[in-house]
């Protein structure tokens, strides 16, 4: 069970308080109608599944009810950082 640092509450809390929100940094296309079916499907369905560094959303559902992002190593499950929505990760795949 993970121990997750909530960047809004500013403390570590048990995974039980959170739910997983999938890959982070996927911007909704500003003009969906301008996209081909294939481009729209890319946004809709296709997600990264890396071995190693993954930026993902978490939701402090039984807590502050805020979404935030985490950089997690999918091999070791180590959470390397958590950061607020709208900011960029300090640790990227190239660093590890």
């Amino acid at each position, binding site marked *: 069970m993970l121990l997750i640092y909530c960047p809004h509450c500013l403390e570590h809390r048990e995974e039980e308080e959170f739910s997983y929100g999938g890959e982070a940094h996927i911007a909704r296309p500003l*003009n969906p109608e301008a996209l081909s079916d294939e481009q729209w499907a890319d946004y809709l369905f296709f997600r990264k599944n890396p071995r190693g560094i993954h930026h993902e959303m978490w939701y402090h559902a039984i807590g502050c009810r805020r979404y935030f992002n985490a950089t997690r190593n999918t091999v070791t499950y180590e959470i390397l950082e958590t950061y607020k929505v709208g900011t960029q990760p300090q640790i990227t795949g190239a660093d590890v």
Partner: protein
Amino acid sequence: MRQLNRLPTAGRTDQNKVLNFTFNGKGYQGVAGDTLASALLANGVDVVGRSFKYARPRGIFGHGPEEPNAIIQLGSGAATIPNLKATQVELYEGLEAASVNGWPSVNFDLMGLIGAFGRLMPPGFYYKTFMYPKKLWMTYEHFIRKAAGLGSSPTGRDPDSYEKLNQHCDVLVVGAGPAGLVAAREAARTGARVIIADEQSEFGGSLLASTQLIDGVPATQWVAEITDELGEFKNVQRLPRSTVFGYYDHNFLAILERVTDHLGISSASGPRQCMHRVRAAQVVLATGAFERPLVFAHNDIPGVMLASSVSTYVNRFGVAPGTRLVVATTNDNAYQTAIDWHHAGRSVVSVVDSRTGPSGDLVEQVRALGIQILEGHGLIEAVGGKRVRKALVAPINPEGSKVTGPVQRLACDLIASSGGWSAAIHLSSHTGAKPVWDDTIVSFRPGESKQKERSAGACRGTFGSLEGLREGASAGAEAAKLAGFGSGEVQFPTPVIDQIIEQPQQALFLVPHNKATSRAPSQFVDFQLDVSAAGIELAVLEGFESVEHVKRYTALGFGTDQGKLGNINGMAILANALGQDIAETGTTIFRPSYTPTTFGAIAGRDINQLFDPERYTAMHRWHVEKGAEFENVGQWKRPWYFPQRNETMQQAVDREGLAVRNSVGILDATTLGKIDIQGPDAAEFITRMYTNSYLKLAPGKCRYGVMLKEDGMIFDDGVCACLSENHYLMFTTTGGAAGVLSWLELWQQTEWPELQVYFTSVTDHWATATVTGPNARKVIAKVCQDIDLASESFGFMDWRDGTVAGVTARVFRISFTGELSYEVNAPAHYGRHVWEQLIEAGAEFNITPYGTETMHVLRAEKGFIIVGQDTDGSMTPADMNMNWVVGKNKVFSFIGKRSLERSDSIRENRKQLVGLKTLEPNTVLPEGAQIVNDPNQPIPMAMQGHVTSSYYSASLRHSIALAVVKGGLNRMGDIVYCPAADGASIAAEIVSSVFYDPTGKRQHV
């Protein structure tokens, strides 16, 4: 009854405290401090069970969690516990135990006949034999399970209670042997919060059976002193009888503490077990090692044991499990067993050492005692039936691969074998650390740490006592430092202990026989599952190469002992057969649980009414008093129907429905989700979430909307009301409320943080009574004077503030029945008052409370969908014939809009919502029934869709159903069929999904 094998020396037991117990129905006596295993051995009980596959008689082999044979059932009835290891069950007065294997009895076993044909049951036997015909598998399985005897389940509810405890600590020390004890002491001294857990009844680990002196005193005395010392630290929690059974992510460890198990079954003095869920800053693993048995022919006959187990029974329990001992070894360590046996006053026939010229300290001690040492020899076969009678020994070559001389027979009744030690790397493996094979110690070592842990002592492959103590101390100091305590320097002097000089051991995983492995009598590797060396070699011949596959094919390590004894030997034999070394072959990964864990402890107190919260509305007691039957909707308890006198459910639902259609009914609709939405951008935000627009919704008005996921599929629906400028109330489905709130928050927080809008769940703040039917207005008028109820001023899809039954309330003219309806929302605490006033006001119209079942019938008559029943996450608004709810011209591309144009969303022949009318009007279609065009076509038939909702409609006097049918909207009037499991099929006509009042005038009056 005499305990034949009880020695005058007591060890750690109290021979003055005699305890009575029964095993397989027969009475015995043991003493306080015994385990069930030591007590059985004291009584000379040889056969304690039968093996899983061949039903061979088996005796006690080990002394701890590695025990493969002595698997027992404790007690009977509701409190019985199956599959315990006798070596881990502490004896108590009145204990009742029985073997789990062995039917009809362990001494006369019908299944033993099968054992005689063992050669006919090679690995994969079950796969090969019982696969066909497939439908007989259930029969086979039943037979196999009965024959195998996996223990019996309790016959009733568990009478015991269990606890869970969440804890944090700075240093968790796993194992209270020499390394663990000194690690805990070093960490404790720094002020760090320390937990030290050990699975045995008392601290000390291997030292409990040791004859060594530490700091000049006997090892057990040293243990007692340091244990007391730890007890004086306020920052130390000592947990004996506590197994750390799982090491999970981010240094989360689970400990099963057996709180009262040792006091008897169903103790009244406290919870039976407690699960500690520990988040540790740092962990020290000091879990010791398991001795490896030697694999030789018929090494499973009762009377063959681990060398260290023989020593443990002698030294710790004062029990000598036999009279004439042969020790078979590949190392110096097992010579200690010969010494212990000799000092117990029993006869050591011989020490059979595979090495030539052994000369370590212990070897010399044995020589000095005049005990025969057969060096360069292997013990190739045990002879006996229910007890060892003889050992066959022969000279072997230095590689240990061949018998090189004549076979000698040694008369004996006990064989102690040692093939070296395997580090207990299980917990380190749980973290994902990959074990590393080390030829010098002939064992795996823990791999590189993946978490904040380090191993110390034997579990790290450091088998010497002195080195183990040193390692433990520095591990404790280091762990404390990394947790923020102390300097990391060891503070206490290293305990003084005699260093024993040992010669190198030999790596010998299979003792050769004078016959080839495939022809030799079975040489068992995994005792519990009867996996033999020949079986592993056969698996290789059949083409298996990967250790993971061989493991599954032969069942090596699949027993309740999880291969603690057999895995290394098995992998080494496999490596040899493949012509690889062990490092190449690799190991399998250990996973939690280290030893079996009861469900009771995992559940703790989260059972019965504490399993899941139940939510009640303010009117709940009224429903109970009126005899309502309830249904669960999420966590809510909702009235299902209100039976009167002896009514059946159908009769009640018919009566309730007719009341609504003909006069007036009342429904508790409190459970509908309600989200209060405020902010200058509220209308814009809501418009982006629903398929239709809310930008022009005026205060006092409501609108029905459908919410899609971004893939265009219906996700929730409900009415949204404009309360005032920038203030809305969104209704959701009962089950969808939490999901919708999270969904709104997701989009606002991650995609459109610039929109100023705030959400509050107010579901529980309001109690809602729906008054519906042609007489609804008359009822409301009697309790509400400050709202003009005339249709012209308070029309359909309007809402008004007012006073109902003296309480400030919101009244919504929205309808889920198709009738004139008022949904009265009152503050929750006034819910029952308002409800009772409405019932009283409606008495003259025979106002009828109705439940969810009638609600479903009424809405289905109107063709109103229920999200999650008529939709399944693959339905668009167009599929539901609800294009009218999609605002095609909305400026902003609302959630899901683009997906409605995807090629799959617009393809022909999608399943569409239609009504079905059975040709036989009283026949109600089963919900979920498949729909076909031709019931006589051969199987597999072409499926056209399925029934989503189906009821008998009392007001229409025929059955009605909603269904999704391929291209259904263009098939009005077609006859389709629903085949049933019994071969019959029901014919139905495709009709409009709106059965009742298709123009909708009744709700507009």
